[in-house]
């Protein structure tokens, strides 16, 4: 892990996966440049993309963390919506008659988002570590549970009509250029990068992900590590929910329901091993950017129906995995032969 910072150039050469993602982004950007230059390459378009991807980007970061431990978090959308709905109720209660919010409201909802996300993550973590339910089932069940809570709270209706101040603030551009959503994403991404590569906790979850049994025999407190990881994932999802709340200016139990699968795919596309122990945040961020650019780029071709987006997205994913298979296999045969 140390090498990434010593020499970026050789690092990219070493990491086939990152290289491949970068090549695909460049190829796609060139293609768009040749065909639809004016419609794609505008500040406004890039700002729109940068404001859109953080909501699912944050959720993908959460899944990445869980996947590094060899698990998964399928409850992210449930957590995000639960956070958004609870905070929407709070904002509604705090909104005064003239439609303004007290100054403490914004920090308060963000603190609450972190608390709700962490609590939901704690629940997941306990199921996975103490009750030893496979992560895929535990978090899927928990996700349904959170969605049920959302439904019960709202009867399936959207919660809106709270002060516009919140949405306006998050939809602001810092200095007229930099979307606030992107800032939130970057802060969280830096925090997670720091945790993974600079802290003992980061090293431990990589180790745990590659061999849970050996981690126990090495004296690691595996349950505690897993719980912390799922709490972090919950916080990511909670913050993702707060961005959805701002982007739609409302909260509903079934917003973003396609994000679960999409985020899992992003994380795998970003080079995180679903079996655990391997994966870097740089790959996941590149995968998020690639996805966003593909989708926005395709939208610039009016005669291609938006229904084709899934088709193309699925195609890219399969292509990357096939390429991975071949490069992994090449590596493997060489290793076998050397032995």
């Amino acid at each position, binding site marked *: 892990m140390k090498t990434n910072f010593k020499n970026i150039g050789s690092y990219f050469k070493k990491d086939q996966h990152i290289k491949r993602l970068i090549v695909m982004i460049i190829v796609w950007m060139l293609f768009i440049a040749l065909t639809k230059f004016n419609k794609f390459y505008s500040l406004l378009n890039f700002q729109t993309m940068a404001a859109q991807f953080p909501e699912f980007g944050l959720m993908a970061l959460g899944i990445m963390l869980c996947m590094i431990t060899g698990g998964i978090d399928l409850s992210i959308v449930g957590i995000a919506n639960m956070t958004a709905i609870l905070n929407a109720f709070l904002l509604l209660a705090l909104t005064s008659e003239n439609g303004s919010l007290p100054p403490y409201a914004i920090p308060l909802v963000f603190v609450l988002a972190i608390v709700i996300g962490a609590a939901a993550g704690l629940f997941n973590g306990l199921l996975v570590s103490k009750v030893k339910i496979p992560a895929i089932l535990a978090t899927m069940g928990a996700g349904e549970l959170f969605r049920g809570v959302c439904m019960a709270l709202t009867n399936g209706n959207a919660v809106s009509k709270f002060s516009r101040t919140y949405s306006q603030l998050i939809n602001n551009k810092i200095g007229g250029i930099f979307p606030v959503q992107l800032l939130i994403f970057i802060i969280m991404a830096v925090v997670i990068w720091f945790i993974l590569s*600079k802290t003992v906790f980061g090293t431990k979850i990589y*180790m745990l992900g590659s*061999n849970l049994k*050996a981690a126990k025999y090495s*004296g690691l407190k595996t349950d505690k590590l897993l719980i912390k990881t799922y709490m972090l994932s919950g916080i990511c999802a909670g913050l993702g929910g707060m961005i959805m709340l701002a982007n739609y200016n409302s909260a509903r139990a079934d917003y973003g329901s396609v994000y679960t699968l999409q985020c899992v795919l992003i994380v795998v596309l970003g080079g995180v091993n679903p079996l655990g122990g391997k994966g870097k945040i740089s790959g996941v961020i590149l995968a998020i950017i690639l996805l966003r650019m593909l989708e926005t780029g395709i939208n610039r071709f009016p005669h291609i129906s938006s229904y084709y987006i899934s088709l193309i997205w699925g195609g890219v994913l399969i292509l990357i995995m096939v390429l991975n298979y071949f490069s992994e296999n090449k590596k493997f045969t*060489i290793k076998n*032969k*050397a*032995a």
Partner: protein
Amino acid sequence: MVESLLKTVDIYKSFAGVQALKGVSFSLKPGEIHCLAGENGSGKSTLIKVISGVYAPTSGHIEFSGRTYNKITPIEAINNGIQVIYQDFSVFPNLSVMENLALNSELADNKRFVNWKRMRKIAEESLSKINFSIDLDLDVGSLTVAEKQMIAISRALMFNTRLIIMDEPTTALTKREVQQLFKIILKLKDQGIAILFVSHKLNEVFEISENFTILRNGEKVAEGETSSLNTDQFSYHMTGREFEAKHFIPAEISKKPIFEAKDISLSGKLEDISFSLFKGEILGITGLLDSGRSELALSMFGMNKIDSGTFELNGKVVKIDSPQAAIENKIGYVPEDRLTEGLFLSQSIADNIIISVIDKFTGKAGILDNEKREKEIKLWVEELSIATPDPNNECQTLSGGNQQRIALAKWLACNLDILILNGPTVGVDIGSKHDIHEILQNLANKGLGVIIISDDLPEILENCSRVLVMKSGKIVSDLDAKTSDEQAILSYMM
């Protein structure tokens, strides 16, 4: 002279520039028990794969019953009566014994529907060939290693088999099970079936085989009749080094025990276990696979919570209810299965070494102090002469012996008082085995209390000063290794 069944002539095989086999020729007669020996990486596995058709040789040819093949396909190999039983036996753990036995022939006959009666008959017939009886409806996953092996052998016999290649068949077997296996091998010999026995265990090679071939670095270094070979020559051919077998005599043993177990019980597993360990000695614990030896080790390391009894450390009662508690009390445990319990194979060598002490390398707020970390890693890589160009390489790039050194380094970094090793040299080649023994002896001399749990009796006798023999969860004997021998220990074990 009897015509040879299988002959390999001047086989060369190279992979991407690495010569795995360099001109290996050997031959095998019908009904012959032949041992193919060599250390890890000597080319044994490659040779088996060339014979069974998995690899095509770069040059050279194979003769089977007089017919010459430049290369043989796996199907041709099976049709010629060659069957390979791999270390993992390639059985289906989730299917029943009957299904495992009958599936191949059902598939080979292109049957589209399942006829349970016919399958039962096929299964019964194949088991009767080796006089093995077992409930056909049991799941294979629930069987012992030895039983799985019997299933694999019966299955191999279903195809008009003339040669069975067994890859390290005794690795996970107890002494008694090995004896049963040998009986079956002799029975197969009587039926004219040749056995190619791949092993690096000395005593087995001597006991069972008539002829041997030893490979080293892809070359045949010795061959002949086993009766003309002695242990020292065998070790020399295998490693190219000469070893002096000597009994370890501890430099200094403390008067007071460093660790005591008093009346340890674990329901159904352990019963009233009491013993003491002194500083500077190596204590051996042996017994059959189900004797409770592993359970005892796990209890000492806090993985099994004991029902009653106490552990005392330097005369003080300590509570060991988790691995963390054991490590705090300076007890380390090198597990039985290095690959699944001991190491993080896909992670770096460096992280594997320091994982248990990683909390020591934190600066403020849990941030890794890289300088301290690197220093510690360098220290252990050198101290245990782990052969790696770069400690950031993945752990799985190393050989078994080097991997075991990493497992040791991990615990040595913890600065322990007591080190428990379960099967410290299982699957490790002779050279590394010797080195690991030396490391353990040095540790004892430095004042550690070392416990070796093993059913490798020569290993126990060579290294330990005392031997505890376990049977059915109890310690049945406490022997002085100097005055004891393998026969004596075996008589207590059985």
